[in-house]
């Protein structure tokens, strides 16, 4: 088995809420290991703290309790060993597709000449050869997300953190991008942590699926997903349906509990 790449140890995150007496516990007792080269999906209802967890791993915020290790070392802030892909692309609108991919390379200090070459290569990898000079507003949502993925791949991070990257796309575009992401993952061997609220997406993409509950955000189960074969229409595979149903039931039970708690006056 591959070594552990990301180790999340008893991580909690508490936010102080303005105007409220008590702080808000977004995450509690999160324990999770992500192995090197693994594709892990994190599924949970909206507001369960998925993005908060991703921000912690990215080093954009610090955990209130516990620690996060990458390659055995505690993380200290953001770094180019991790690349993030956001749902809303986060492309610089005044830069072309090429310029956007180069942006990460500039941060890394790659020499100017090499930048354009590498940016071109990665735009090609995501299927955008010929679109280098387009501005984000001249591209469709799916293409923008491809640019964002290329940008994150270009500076060659070990870990790719993806925060519901396909949620804003239409179903067809999403499916084609899922397929491509798997292809790219197979080619580059990155460790991927992929957040989604879509159960199908989680099962389709993940080697393992971590299921999260909300209030406070916790990981309730980690499911190994294995198919005999990934050929053909995977979503029609009976095993796919079983995984899907299993997670669905779990999330529904959670939702029912959460709803119950919400209905009960607090304090």
């Amino acid at each position: 088995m591959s070594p552990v790449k990301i180790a999340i140890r008893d991580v909690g995150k508490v936010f102080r809420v303005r105007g409220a007496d008590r702080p808000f516990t977004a995450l509690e007792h999160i324990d999770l290991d992500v192995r090197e080269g693994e594709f892990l999906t994190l599924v949970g209802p909206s507001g369960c703290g998925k993005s908060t967890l991703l921000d912690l791993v990215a080093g954009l915020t610090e955990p209130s309790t516990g620690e996060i290790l990458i390659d055995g070392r505690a993380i200290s802030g953001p770094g180019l060993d991790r690349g993030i892909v956001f749902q809303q692309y986060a492309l610089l609108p005044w830069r072309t597709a090429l310029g956007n991919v180069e942006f990460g390379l500039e941060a890394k200090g790659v020499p100017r000449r090499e930048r354009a070459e590498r940016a071109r290569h990665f735009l090609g990898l995501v299927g955008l050869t010929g679109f280098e000079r387009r501005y984000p507003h001249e591209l469709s949502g799916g293409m923008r997300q491809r640019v964002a993925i290329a940008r994150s791949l270009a500076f060659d991070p070990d870990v790719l953190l993806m925060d519901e990257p396909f949620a804003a796309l239409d179903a067809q575009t999403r499916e084609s991008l899922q397929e491509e992401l798997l292809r790219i993952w197979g080619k580059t061997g990155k460790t991927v942590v992929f957040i989604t609220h879509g159960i199908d997406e989680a099962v389709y993409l993940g080697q393992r699926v971590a299921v999260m509950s909300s209030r406070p955000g916790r990981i309730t189960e980690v499911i190994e997903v294995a198919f005999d074969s990934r050929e053909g229409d995977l979503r029609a595979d009976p095993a796919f349906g079983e995984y899907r149903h299993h997670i669905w039931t779990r999330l529904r039970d959670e939702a029912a509990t959460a709803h119950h708690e919400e209905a009960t006056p607090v304090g």
Partner: protein
Amino acid sequence: MADTLTTPATPATPATPATSATPAGPTASAASAASASSSPSAGLTAPGAPDRAAPPYGVRETSAPGRAPGRGGVLLARARLVAQRVTAVLLLLAVWEAAPRAGLVDRVFVPPVSEVAAAWWDLALGGALGEHLAASLARSLSGFGLAIVVAIPLGLLIGWYKPVADFLGPVLELFRNTSAVALLPVFVLIFGLDETSKITFVLYACTWPILLNTISGVKTVEPLLIKSARSLGLGPVALFQKVVLPAAVPTIFTGVRLAGAYAILVLLFAEMVGAKAGLGFLINDAQANFRIHDMYAGIITISVLGLLFNLLLVTVERRFSTWRTT
């Protein structure tokens, strides 16, 4: 009266590059807005190899639906629009010509436009108009230029340091809502009646729109862009230089354009109070000495000057904000 223009650009709606009504052709902006709404089907190009091999042909079609009706249709539409606008102006001139002749208005106070044009021509040939124009332009451009040099860095500073912005906010709001013209007597008191007071006055009036737009431009940079840049490990300096500044440029430019309009507008007031040259002086002096034709010649000059200046700034602004269409 300058107050109507004082509203700074609201960057909350980045969809409109120009906040106030601009006389420049809406044809261009409409076309660019249309081409900006790239169809979502553009992303549907098949995954994998065919996608990569495909030239951008398919997308070129979808991303430029504005050109769909063909060149001829567009030209025709544009010609129609130009005709529409010219018609309105011609109509105005016709009324101006006919009304005094028909005795609808007093010919002494509102002479026909043809007579005004003749007077303008005489003034221009005699060199007087050129002198006045040069004096006005020198003051306007000095004040305007100084305002750019002062207000943009100051605005960047205030906008970037949130505590400073919060601290100065109420004061800025107060000054913003005080018409510069109301403060003209103060400027005359402090700086006297010479060039210094006029240039400072223009500088003062032009500073506000630029300053306020720069501040809001910096403050309203899309937080996700900052987050994304931070995740790449960018330090504060690089973040400012590569993300905040370019993101703020269009908003800053809207302020610059507003200031451009002020530069000419408020100068007139200054020149009417105590000056020996300048278009404001010309208009006032001509009126006082009952050279009514010259007065109108001065007025026409100033309005055409304002129009051209704004047109120039709109063009420059558009160059800097081409990306701001989504």
